[in-house]
């Protein structure tokens, strides 16, 4: 046992560069595996925190709607389910006007009326300064650090606010750190006052206008929502946020990373697989000797597997370390842009570390098992006598299988719908690569047959010889495979990143025909605002429509990210929609009956056709309502996860639970118009952004993520490059004798260099071109995978990326072969020939 272990250790330490390559492969793929999974957890936690900023620890929110008899209600009716709830906290949410200077514009401050104990249970905050905070009653106020510094306020100062037309003086008894509701004040200032103070000012003492409920067991959630909905049947009772929403948001960010990890893993498996083929060829004589002195097959297999397991263990352990490092890098990279406000927490989950180790083991064992099984098939006699015929890889079954894989991966995603789509599409992505790898040897022989004449014509006899050298050349095939997968993933990720950016930008350039967007308005403000806006100088058009997010389709087991209730006479003037149909009649039909226009993305996701009926859960209080599908269109918005219904039915069926959006066209600089609107109507709460601002904001958010994705890719390319270089060097070592023989029969150094250059340039260009084709195949597959998670990205292939891909492939192959070739030409001929 000890002896075997020693033997294996000696083997591992003997070939340093190969050991390094194998360990590096495992290290990088397991590192990426760990970091992408941990990153997904961080992102999901970040979304959770971001959504929780406004809803605290609660699970359910009760709020008034337009149909409610009063904005205020009593918490009394919530007591029915007090057994199942951990807390029911009521708040009064109102807005106040603050005039910092006599002559200055007033600003709106969002007041949260709540007791201090409730606040600390519901959405805890901490203080940077306090002043007599122990009894939080009467006209006291907690403001944010941001407010304090903006207006030069400190604890102990007073603050005059106009609330419900009453002027009130408040004592600042706390300056809150930017946590909880104070985390993000980019959309307006927040402050906290005692609940009773607001109750008195609105003459609604003892009542609240917002209730937050936390359940004891999350399993009880639906039941509690149900009983609360009954108790508050005129109010809006809803889940604080849905886990599905978080999962879907997280997925949209993480999926591209996971795809890169999948491809990198495949590439690493291939590197390990080809290394193990060489390892086993080397070990064969030793295995033969061991067998001849009585070692069992089990022992010899154990030796090989032990070697592989050791690589897996070392690579996996190092990979965990690298993964943790990467995770920190990734988190800090996005915390400035994307995760603004909510901190991205880095959590090293021990369970994930364990899975990473297991992943590394499986990866390594699986990749090495194939060559080991091939050895198992060899009769003992042949191993012992070392008379193993080189196994012929060229089998018809490989062509058939390769072509089958390729066709499957092209055809299947077109027909995969629903929940299985993501699994099927990802499987297709992997088998498309496998298919390409199976076909590589044929690719070379077809290429040789096709171009032999041309090569002789252009490069003379040396060209012919170079082509012949490519024939059945294992290391060239490995290099070619690596070049193909490298180029393909490079192209895929680049195309994805640029297409995503272009598409997001095209929303602003091609689809939106307005200049300023107003949303997140206070209840009931939108209708007034729509009319008031015309009075602003420079406003040439105003269009108000409605949106509701995350609407369940009860008869399809899924949901639509956004449904818009549109004014069919105005919508197309403000938003472009594309369709193969002329939609004029369909738009009219939206008005005359409950019908819906869906994007092609949703059509494919749910496998729909015109005439299908969707039961939509448009509001919490009502059951699903049937809408008939009457047509399909394309939009870049919401990644294509959208649908249109008419305003009329939308209003009716949602019962006032929706977001109004006001689109404004301007004849002046949108910035000026935006400021004018803020100045004149700042007392209403809304968020307003010009298109340029939002565009810049989006870029600021996605750029760090895309950079990270490119970073993942660079790591992958790095390992691929090392693999290719290593492979070319191995190829040269095994060809040293052949080259010596050629020299001995009169090939001069120049001819040799020319031959090697032609070979490597051929492999480089062939790899580049095939890589581009494979890249298109992968990107196409990726489109389907993204579609399955409701991201419709139209891949825009750029010729310059393709050209760059081919040039890089060419350069890598040439550089990787010229160095060993130059070295080989320095050897004395006879040394090369004697070399075995």
């Amino acid at each position, binding site marked *: 046992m000890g002896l075997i272990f020693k033997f294996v250790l000696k083997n591992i330490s003997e070939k340093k560069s190969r050991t390094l390559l194998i360990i590096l492969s495992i290290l990088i793929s397991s590192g990426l595996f760990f970091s992408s999974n941990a990153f997904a957890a961080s992102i999901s936690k970040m979304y959770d925190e971001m959504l929780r900023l406004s809803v605290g620890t609660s699970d359910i929110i009760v709020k008034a709607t337009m149909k409610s008899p009063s904005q205020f209600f009593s918490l009394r009716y919530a007591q029915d389910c007090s057994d199942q709830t951990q807390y029911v906290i009521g708040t009064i949410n109102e807005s106040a006007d603050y005039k910092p200077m006599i002559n200055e514009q007033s600003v709106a401050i969002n007041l949260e009326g709540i007791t201090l104990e409730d606040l600390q249970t519901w959405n805890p905050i901490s203080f940077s300064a306090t002043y007599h905070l122990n009894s939080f009653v009467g006209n006291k106020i907690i403001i944010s650090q941001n407010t304090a510094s903006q207006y030069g306020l400190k604890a102990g100062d007073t603050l005059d606010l106009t609330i419900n037309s009453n002027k009130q003086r408040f004592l600042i008894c706390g300056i809150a750190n930017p946590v909880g509701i104070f985390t993000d004040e980019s959309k307006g200032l927040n402050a906290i006052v005692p609940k009773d103070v607001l109750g008195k000012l609105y003459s609604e003492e003892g009542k609240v206008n917002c209730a937050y409920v936390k359940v004891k067991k999350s399993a009880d959630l639906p039941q509690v929502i149900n009983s609360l909905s009954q108790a508050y049947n005129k109010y809006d009772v809803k889940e604080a946020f849905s886990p599905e929403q978080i999962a879907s948001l997280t997925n949209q960010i993480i999926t591209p990373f996971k795809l890169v990890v999948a491809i990198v893993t495949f590439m690493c498996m291939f590197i390990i697989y080809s290394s193990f083929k060489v390892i086993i060829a080397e070990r064969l004589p030793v295995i033969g000797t061991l067998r001849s002195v009585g070692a069992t097959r089990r022992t010899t297999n154990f030796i090989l597997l032990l070697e592989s397991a050791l690589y897996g263990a070392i690579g996996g352990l190092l990979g965990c370390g690298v993964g943790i490092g990467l995770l920190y890098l990734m988190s800090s990279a996005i915390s400035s842009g994307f995760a603004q406000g909510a901190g991205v927490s880095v959590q090293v989950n021990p369970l994930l570390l364990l899975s990473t180790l297991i992943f590394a083991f499986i990866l390594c064992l699986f990749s090495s098992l194939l060559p080991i099984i091939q050895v198992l098939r060899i009769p003992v006699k042949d191993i012992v006598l070392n008379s193993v015929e080189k196994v012929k890889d060229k089998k018809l079954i490989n062509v058939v299988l390769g072509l089958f894989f390729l066709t499957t991966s092209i055809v299947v995603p077109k027909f995969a719908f629903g929940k299985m789509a993501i699994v099927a599409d990802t499987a297709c992505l992997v088998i498309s690569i496998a298919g390409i790898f199976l076909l590589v040897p044929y690719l070379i022989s077809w290429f040789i047959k096709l171009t032999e004449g041309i090569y002789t014509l252009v490069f003379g006899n040396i060209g012919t010889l170079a082509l012949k050298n490519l024939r059945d050349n294992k290391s060239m095939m490995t290099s070619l495979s690596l070049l193909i997968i490298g180029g393909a993933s490079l192209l895929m990720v680049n195309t994805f990143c640029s297409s995503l950016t272009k598409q997001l930008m095209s929303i602003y350039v091609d689809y939106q025909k307005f200049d300023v967007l107003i949303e997140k308005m206070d209840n009931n403000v939108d209708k007034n605002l729509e009319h008031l806006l015309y009075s602003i100088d420079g406003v040439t058009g105003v269009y108000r429509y409605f949106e509701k997010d995350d609407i369940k389709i009860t008869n399809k087991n899924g949901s639509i990210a956004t449904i818009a209730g549109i004014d069919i006479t105005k919508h197309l003037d403000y938003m472009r929609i594309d369709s193969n149909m002329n939609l004029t009649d369909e738009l009219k039909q939206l008005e005359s009956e409950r019908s819906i226009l869906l994007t092609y993305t949703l059509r494919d996701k749910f496998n729909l056709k015109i005439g299908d009926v969707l039961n939509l859960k448009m509001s919490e209080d009502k059951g699903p309502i049937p809408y008939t599908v009457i047509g399909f269109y394309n939009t870049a918005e919401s990644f294509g996860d959208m649908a249109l219904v008419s305003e009329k039915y939308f209003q009716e069926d949602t019962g006032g639970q929706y977001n109004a959006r006001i689109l404004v066209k301007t004849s002046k600089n949108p910035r000026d118009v935006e400021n004018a609107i803020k100045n004149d109507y700042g007392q209403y709460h809304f968020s307003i952004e010009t298109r340029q601002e939002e565009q810049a904001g989006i870029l600021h958010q996605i750029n760090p993520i895309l950079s990270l994705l490119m970073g993942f890719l660079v790591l992958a390319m790095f390992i691929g490059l090392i693999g290719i270089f290593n492979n070319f060097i191995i190829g040269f070592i095994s060809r040293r004798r052949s080259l010596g023989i050629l020299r001995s029969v009169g090939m001069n150094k120049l001819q040799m260099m020319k031959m090697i250059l032609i070979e490597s340039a051929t492999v480089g260009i062939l790899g580049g071109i095939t890589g581009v084709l494979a890249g298109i195949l992968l990107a196409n597959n990726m489109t389907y995978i993204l579609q399955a998670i409701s991201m419709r990205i139209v891949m825009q292939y750029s010729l310059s990326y393709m050209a760059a891909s081919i040039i890089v492939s060419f350069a890598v192959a040439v550089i990787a072969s010229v160095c060993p070739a130059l070295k080989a030409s320095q050897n004395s*001929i006879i040394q090369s020939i004697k070399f075995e």
Partner: protein
Amino acid sequence: MNQVIVTQNLFKAYTMGTLNVEILKDINISINKGEFVSIMGPSGSGKSTLLYLLGGLDRPTSGSIKINDKELSSMSDKAESAMRRRDLGFVFQFYNLVPNLSVEENVLLPILLDGKKAKKYHERLNELLELIGLADRKNHTPRELSGGQQQRVAIARALINDPEIILADEPIGNLDSKTGIEVMKLLKRINLEKSKTIIQVTHSSESAEYGNRTINLLDGRVCQQSNEE
């Protein structure tokens, strides 16, 4: 007499670590056109090393080698390579065929490297394959041939470009006696009919008998030269 190969004060040493081992010491030989010379000597005496030096496959430590009155060490790589494929034919003890090329392609190598059209040598190729008895095997790879067959392919390769001088390192060392005799007869015929200069290394006196002169090496020195005619 026309001297095709002349060496003067030829030395060859290998450094192994710190040790400097002299393999060939002060070799002075000359070989005339049309001669069939056998280099003999015990194993390890430097016979192969000498033959490699004569063929320009290795460089001497000092001394000069002239082939057709041209000093080898002053030739460019290009000129030397051209000489190797046009004027010299080398037959190695271990055949040294290129494994991924067919019999036909292996034989044609010197032609191809010379930039000549392989088609023009069709007849000559067939003639040679006929001569070595492998006409039906021309599309096989070396791996599919026996040792003797491979050696005959190597001889065909040495002859394809019709070189003046043939250098053969134990050409029949790995062959059975019957094939060995055939190969020796073949060489003798080429020597006589085409008046090619042949230098073979051998340690069997039987095969040395096919030649007309013997050079004996012992510990890297020429100890005796004899004319058998």
